[in-house]
């Protein structure tokens, strides 16, 4: 039962990753690409980690996995912000 | 010899060739430096592949330690090269 849920979560996470990657390749401008990348990937990673944590069977490992997710969330939020800000500045300057 | 060995050893050799070609041919310092680093990574990949003994078998730790040493040596050399290049461009800007 747990295995099935875990697999389902991982597959769902991968789906979000796929969507994010397609978005990165297909979307027209930087802002929407950034949007696709950060949102879809953060959610994808969250699902992936949820699936793996269920699979781990050890609370400590599960907590470490969640910690990774939090760190990635913070880093990707901040870097997306910096990239968008920089792009905005270039636009206003030119 | 496992299939994995084949795959990673051949990749390592190809990466060595790619890095070596850039290090020899490119005119820009930064690219040459990256070329040398890529070449090093190829050699390291070969070493780690040599250490591999198959899934679930403990690998040989000696090449792992060698590669760790190699990575630190490589970053030291890269840092010194970049500092020299910076000094050089600063001189050219002033003179």
């Amino acid at each position, binding site marked *: 039962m747990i295995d099935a849920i875990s697999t389902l979560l991982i597959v769902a996470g991968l789906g979000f990753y796929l969507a994010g990657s397609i978005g990165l390749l297909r979307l027209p401008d930087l802002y929407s690409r950034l949007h696709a990348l950060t949102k879809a990937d953060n959610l994808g990673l969250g699902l992936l980690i949820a699936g793996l944590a269920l699979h781990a069977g050890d609370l400590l490992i599960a907590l470490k996995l969640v910690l990774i997710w939090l760190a990635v969330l913070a880093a990707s939020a901040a870097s997306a912000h910096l990239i968008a800000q920089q792009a905005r500045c270039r636009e206003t300057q030119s | 010899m496992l299939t994995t060995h084949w795959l990673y050893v051949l990749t390592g050799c190809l990466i060595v060739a790619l890095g070596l070609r850039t290090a020899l041919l490119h005119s820009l310092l930064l690219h040459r430096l990256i070329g040398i680093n890529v070449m090093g990574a190829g050699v390291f990949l070969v070493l*780690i592949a040599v250490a591999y003994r198959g899934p679930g078998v403990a690998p040989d*730790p000696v090449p792992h330690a060698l590669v760790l040493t190699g990575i630190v040596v490589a970053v030291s050399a890269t840092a010194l090269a970049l500092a020299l290049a910076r000094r050089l461009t600063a001189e050219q800007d002033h003179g």
Partner: protein
Amino acid sequence: MTTTALLVLDVLLVSSLLGLAAAALATSDARRSVIYFMAFGLVLAVAWGRLLAPDVALAEAAIGAGLSGALLLAAVREQPRREYSNDTKPVQKRDRTNLKVVLEFTVTLLCIAVAALLAWALVQGFDRAPQDTLAQAVSENLATSGVSNPVTAVLLNFRAYDTLLELAVLLTAVLGILALGPARPGYRTAGPVFDGLVRWLVPVLILVSGYLLWVGAHAPGGAFQAGASLAAAGVVLRLAGRRTVGLPTGRTLHVAMAAGVGMFLVVGLSLLALGRPFLGYPPAWAGGLILLIETAAMLAIGATLVLAFFGGQPPPAINPAGGKPVSGSINTSRPRSREAGSGAGAHTAEPRQQFGEENRQC
């Protein structure tokens, strides 16, 4: 996991490694090339995780991709438009004369030959090697090495002498860098979002380095990964525009830089004085001595890599009492004119910090 799945993973990893290496080397844009190189390093770390080398994977991600990448990007940033050239003469637009084509062709052939020769010899080598003699020796002596992670045992016990010389290499590089002149100008002060990230990221990084140091005795980790994580904290602080990144100044900085080599020598020579071989730890003491050396090495690696990111002598700290800069004994070889005034050096050294509030967003 089935063998087929592993094979698919292998093929994916190998092809992305080759693609990224080729992309990093083929593009003529320096920034792009560095970014591809960093991505290459990260995939390489995954490949090493796959080949059951987690210690190396950690080091590659932190040092090979992370810090090397940061160093290279900082170098590119200083040359936003100009070509980054090795020679004094301006870079010529590619004039593809016959000679050059012939040269390129020859060198390419040579490189292919080298790779083919190496691959052929390696394939031959695999079939004949009595491969596991050394790995067996390591596992037989692991019990007396003081640690249970075999990689740490090799690095800090069996082949500790290599590691001593490697720390000497790091020290040499940073001494060379410091002798070349002042640090590159700092970065502008971070906005609230980035600053907020830095505020909690830095303590976490320091915590992580302590964890990696401790865990290295029995699991993947160790002084190098810990030192790199410490250095990452310094790099992040510097990127956020902090003037000081926790590096000491003057004599203390030199102590930090030389800590690894120094501790190795103190331990090694003390053992020699006690009638044991150089770096021949008594088994009962080995664990503690290794941790002692690793702690010093971590500090040295952290300090050294941050200094490398500075790219030169860090700006002197202001001594509040006298107002004079507390400079290290290793000064810049040719004081630049803008730093001539004592005490005034602090803010002139980093002109970018003078940007006002309205400039902060860009």
